[in-house]
């Protein structure tokens, strides 16, 4: 019995260095990406994360074009492209009448087209697949260091700007009336989104890295009414998804990225059904009410 459990849950990680790295990388990644995802969701920018993930592609492709499949140039390229799109779309929405959803869509579509064009100039479709979907099982030291750095920056920034970020989500006009931090915080936050997507793209690819950001956050929303526990819960759901996804990938030989995201998807659907603010609870328990 114990052996079976060991074989199922521990052995894959204990026996293979690449599994350990994959686990370490994805866990660290969840630590930063999940809280960022919570704020993306609360700011009703869930789809902006998706758009940003696409926007990173031309930068990564430029790195790929000049240096081949090397992590550092591709990451830096992705970071630059992401920041240009985030700042551009953010600025258009802040200083013109166009809302962020429209400006973001415009910027990322242009960016995505450029990216696909660049990859197709040089690479085969296998390379494109690699850029789009990542390889968590091939994380090297460089990649792990990078992810660690990104998470450190993310957590420190969140800690410093927490109050302003909450105020900017809860009551932006109030924040503007007491402080000039509104716009800077918005852009710092967009910067964090880009950073975490770039951190995730080596492991999960540009398209799926947003999944680890949004799905745990969306699932956590069904369990709690406060921001702090929501972030914590999102991180825990992220952890669980990484472990489950990697095990699934190992035992059933599935691609690891989609396995991780699908695990998070399962948690999401379970939360919709069984969460304290989910469907079943609202339908069944609330037939009883108190006198006042």
């Amino acid at each position, binding site marked *: 019995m114990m052996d079976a459990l060991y074989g199922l849950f521990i052995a894959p990680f204990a026996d293979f260095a690449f599994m350990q790295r994959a686990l370490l990388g994805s866990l660290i990644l969840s630590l930063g990406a999940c809280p960022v995802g919570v704020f993306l969701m*609360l700011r009703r920018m869930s789809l902006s994360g998706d758009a940003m993930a696409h926007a990173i592609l031309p930068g990564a492709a430029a790195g790929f074009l000049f240096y081949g499949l090397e992590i550092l140039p591709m990451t830096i390229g992705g970071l630059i492209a992401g920041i240009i799109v985030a700042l551009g779309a953010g600025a258009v929405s802040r200083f013109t009448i166009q809302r962020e959803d429209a400006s973001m869509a415009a910027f990322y579509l242009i960016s995505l087209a450029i990216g696909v064009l660049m990859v197709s100039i040089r690479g085969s479709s296998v390379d494109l697949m690699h850029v789009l979907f990542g390889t968590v099982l091939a994380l090297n030291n460089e990649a792990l260091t990078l992810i660690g750095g990104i998470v450190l920056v993310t957590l420190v920034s969140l800690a*410093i*700007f927490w*109050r*302003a970020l*909450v*105020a900017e*989500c*809860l*009551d*932006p*006009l*109030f*924040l*503007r*009336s*007491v*402080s000039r*931090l509104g716009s800077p915080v918005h852009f710092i936050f967009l910067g964090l989104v880009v950073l975490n997507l770039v951190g995730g793209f080596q492991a999960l690819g540009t398209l799926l890295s947003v999944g680890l950001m949004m799905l745990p956050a969306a699932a956590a*929303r069904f369990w*709690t*009414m*406060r*921001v702090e526990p*929501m972030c914590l819960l999102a991180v825990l759901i992220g952890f669980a998804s990484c472990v489950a996804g990697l095990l699934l990938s190992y035992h059933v030989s599935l691609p690891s990225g989609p396995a991780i995201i699908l695990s998070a998807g399962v948690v999401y659907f379970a939360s919709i059904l069984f969460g304290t603010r989910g469907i079943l609870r609202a339908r069944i328990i609330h037939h009883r009410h108190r006198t006042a």
Partner: protein
Amino acid sequence: MTKTCLTFRDLTLGYNSHPAIHHLDGTIRRGSLTAVVGANGSGKSTLMKGIVGVLKPMAGTVVRAPGVRAAYLPQQSELDRSFPARVVDLVSLGLWPRRGLLGRHTREDRDSVSQALMAVGLGGFEKRPIDTLSGGQLQRTLFARVLLQDADLILLDEPFNAVDTKTVGDLITLIKRWHGEERTIMVVVHDLDLVRHNFPETLLLARQPIAWGETKETLRPENLLRARRFHEAWEENAPWCEPDNHEHGDHPHDHGHDHHHGSGPRAA
């Protein structure tokens, strides 16, 4: 210590080059309690936004006396009620002027949050999620936040909308308490009876001030009639207001407005 809290100098505020407040001059005395009245679109909310600084003037300036901190309760709050926050989280935002971004919220701060809630009749509501509050309860919560901001200049834009009579009474009591504490208060109000009974001074607006001063004088029938004739709509092809036309003060100019320069209550 100066006795002036706010000075408007030839202030023009508006949207898309159309003025909503046109060449306003005058002063708001420190410690005064002023009602701002006028028809829809007469520039009341715009004036509030201009004073807080969330709307930049198209011309002229609003000068706050040095060190004056403003608290602003907007008519249309951009508050996101679906945000997972409790009443205490929302009211605690009012600690920002005192604690800023990083200052720790102390035990006294938490006590003062509870006291502010008590003062608006919401004692014990600390843990309630904000999406379960009624409209009037939310309005009182926002009043508690203003209370906590401890500002010298308090700007309230239609604070009595959708609020029941008893609550209006409570909020008026609170405003009078602030008045007693020598804070400067401006309130946008629609109910003229309420203004007559509770506000010593009134500014009657119709894009420019129709009358400004003691409430009884300002709200005389002939002034109200003039304010009522005010034409709300923009005229797309209205002539440009040339700067040299109003530089010298009172003479009438081509767009036919009577300017009431300096008609505000002067610093005594």
